[in-house]
């Protein structure tokens, strides 16, 4: 039977956005109740990508957990590697050589750039500007080429591991990075001219999905989301790990709390990340890149919590050891999961088009949400 007129005019038209939908960025399902074009309520349904990773960690020796973390936030796999490696190092009291720390920070920042470039591209497509998508992915391609040069992989690196990094920088790496950054600086400006200043893009994002400072804190938002709401909260500054305390960089903060502010935070973070990478090249000492680790790694009983700043926010690993080969419990504090839980409140009363704009601006990755 075709829809009758009462069904259409009634406020309860429910739309299932996803799990197969072009703009839910993965297998997210949004149960959206519409009154015409206005959203009455929205309920995110997650779990389509659940693999039980936290449980799987418990059945693996510590070092075999690393490849799984690549599949959490697959747009910034190196940042996940770093987070779990830090947790393992803390639980096992392992010190990491300086040079390895610099290499780690450098790679994580490069992955952050790649991840934010994906955000720019997909967000522009969400708003309807398809060309920016291709431009952003062209730039991301160059970043991935660099990471491939370093790690041999393009998406799931499995690279940073407890104790350091497995290999040193390849020959000509610095030169390649510099030339890519030179181009990236140009194309970022190009993107700014094409998209950021665009009047249509601005009316679609300014004042949309506003998260107030208090709400952002109350919800536990982190990363670009909370920095877009005027809170200078960055783990790299407030609880520096690796060598971030020796590096000079700014934390971009915007006060508006809308989609535009979150977008601008990420654009600015790309520039800051480039700054960090360039400093890493300058400051990097010679020396070891890997601590001597026992073949069979048994950390003492205890627990550790590592906090890192992933491109999406505060990514933390809680790890409990009972002195055996495998961890007893691993918990992942995934920023995307927490941001996604803000969605029902954010989407109340907005238009259908804004659903996509707001969801996109949170930049969630479902691999991290479902785990």
């Amino acid at each position: 039977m075709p829809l009758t007129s009462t069904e259409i005019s009634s406020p309860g038209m429910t739309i299932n956005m996803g799990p197969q939908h072009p703009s839910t960025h993965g297998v997210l399902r949004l149960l959206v109740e519409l009154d015409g074009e206005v959203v009455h309520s929205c309920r995110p349904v997650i779990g389509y990508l659940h693999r039980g990773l936290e449980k799987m960690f418990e059945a693996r020796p510590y070092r075999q957990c690393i490849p799984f973390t690549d599949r959490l936030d697959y747009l910034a796999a190196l940042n996940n590697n770093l987070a779990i490696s830090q947790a393992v190092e803390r639980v096992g009291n392992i010190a990491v050589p300086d040079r390895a720390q610099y290499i780690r920070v450098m790679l994580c920042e490069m992955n952050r750039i790649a991840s934010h470039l994906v955000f720019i591209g997909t967000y522009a497509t969400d708003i309807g500007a398809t060309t920016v998508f291709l431009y952003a992915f062209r730039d991301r391609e160059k970043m991935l080429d660099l990471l491939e040069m370093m790690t041999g992989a393009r998406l799931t690196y499995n690279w940073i591991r407890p104790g350091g990094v497995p290999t040193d920088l390849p020959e000509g790496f610095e030169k390649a990075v510099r030339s890519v950054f030179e181009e990236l600086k140009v194309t970022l400006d190009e993107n700014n001219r094409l998209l950021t200043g665009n009047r249509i893009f601005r009316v679609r994002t300014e004042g949309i999905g506003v998260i107030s400072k208090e709400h952002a804190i109350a919800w536990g938002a982190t990363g670009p989301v909370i920095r877009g709401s005027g809170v200078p909260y960055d783990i790299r500054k407030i609880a520096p790990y690796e060598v971030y305390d020796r590096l000079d960089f700014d934390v971009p903060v915007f006060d508006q709390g809308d989609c535009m502010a979150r977008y601008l935070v990420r654009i600015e973070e790309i520039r800051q990340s480039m700054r960090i990478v360039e400093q890493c090249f300058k400051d990097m000492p010679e020396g070891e890149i890997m601590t001597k680790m026992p073949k069979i790694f048994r950390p003492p009983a205890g627990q550790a919590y590592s906090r890192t700043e992933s491109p999406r926010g505060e990514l933390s690993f809680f790890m409990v050891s009972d002195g055996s080969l495998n961890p007893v419990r691993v918990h992942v504090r995934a920023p995307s999961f927490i941001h996604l839980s803000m969605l029902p409140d954010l989407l109340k009363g907005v238009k259908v088009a804004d659903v996509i704009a707001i969801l996109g601006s949170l930049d969630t990755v479902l691999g991290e949400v479902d785990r």
Partner: protein
Amino acid sequence: MSVRVYTSSKSYRAGQFFGGLIVSLIIIAVASLLPLLPWYKLNPVLDFIGLHPWLNAFLKAFVVVNFVALHVLFLIWLERKFAGWMQARLGPKHVGWQGLGQTLADAIKLFLKEDIVPAKADRQLFAIAPFLSFMPTLLTFMVLPFSAAWIAYDYDLGALFVVAVSTNVALGVLAAGWGANNKYSILGGARAVAQLLSYEIPMVMMILAVVTLSDTMSMKQIVLRQAHMWNIVAYWPVMIPAFLIFLTCALAELNRTPFDLPEAESELVSGFHTEYSGMRFAFFYLAEFANNFFSAGFAVTLFFGGWYGPILPPVVWFTLKTLILICVMMWIRWTLPRLRIDQVMGFCWKVLVPISLVIYCITALIALK
């Protein structure tokens, strides 16, 4: 381990730009010569057939339909190529020279595809909707003056005919949205009707402005009045804003970015044609691109002196101007993001309608003098 180091891409870009320019010039030239061929051969036949009203009508319809179908094939290719060049990629490349046969291959694929009708769809409405959307577009080609001689039917009320007929596209879109029994479709259909009907108003105002200046509704006469000077040049203070409003409305009527809300991919999957596949889907595409050509051609007729131009034959001039306008539309499409529905409607009723009323009043004063 190696990395492709991207050196400064200035020369690369220049090469891409000039290569693209040359290719597009060749294509435009070839495309504009295309309609010339059959007509010269057919002329004596035409004289004979012209005496028989039914044969005459049939032949004209035949030519119009085939012209539309062939031109759409070309336009889809051009759009994809154009998008490719804008997006720093190559576009269709493998089927035929520079991928010219790609659309044909796609069309064949669509022909062979299973024609799926959703189980709970309104079958009749679902089946007829693509044709409801295509027919008005086809009808408008009847009065499109390619040259003084090459106009299928020089109707006295040509401009009115276009306005009256082309509005019916909304009917087909609504039928598609309703008939598919899909919530995305119905949202798309509802958006389309609201948008198409609203933007019709400033558009008609601007057509009316030209009609008032030309003192005629016949498409042919409108062009003949511009024999010495294009409208947009002769009455530039009113006609330049009028053309800009007309172009904006045309984009809205064509569901093209920034007004592509009825088929907004990131929100409504594909809007009103979400459930369509195979030939019926192809008909929506056909309608969209035919409409694109017509809108550009109509703008050329109203503002840019139709077929008038030096050296080249009139038909070539008309096609050339139309293609340039189409390229402008593509350029806009692949540059801009999409507006939200309330912004689209607000822009129409709060900005375009008042401005178009003012422009029309000024035009009327000029015409009175």
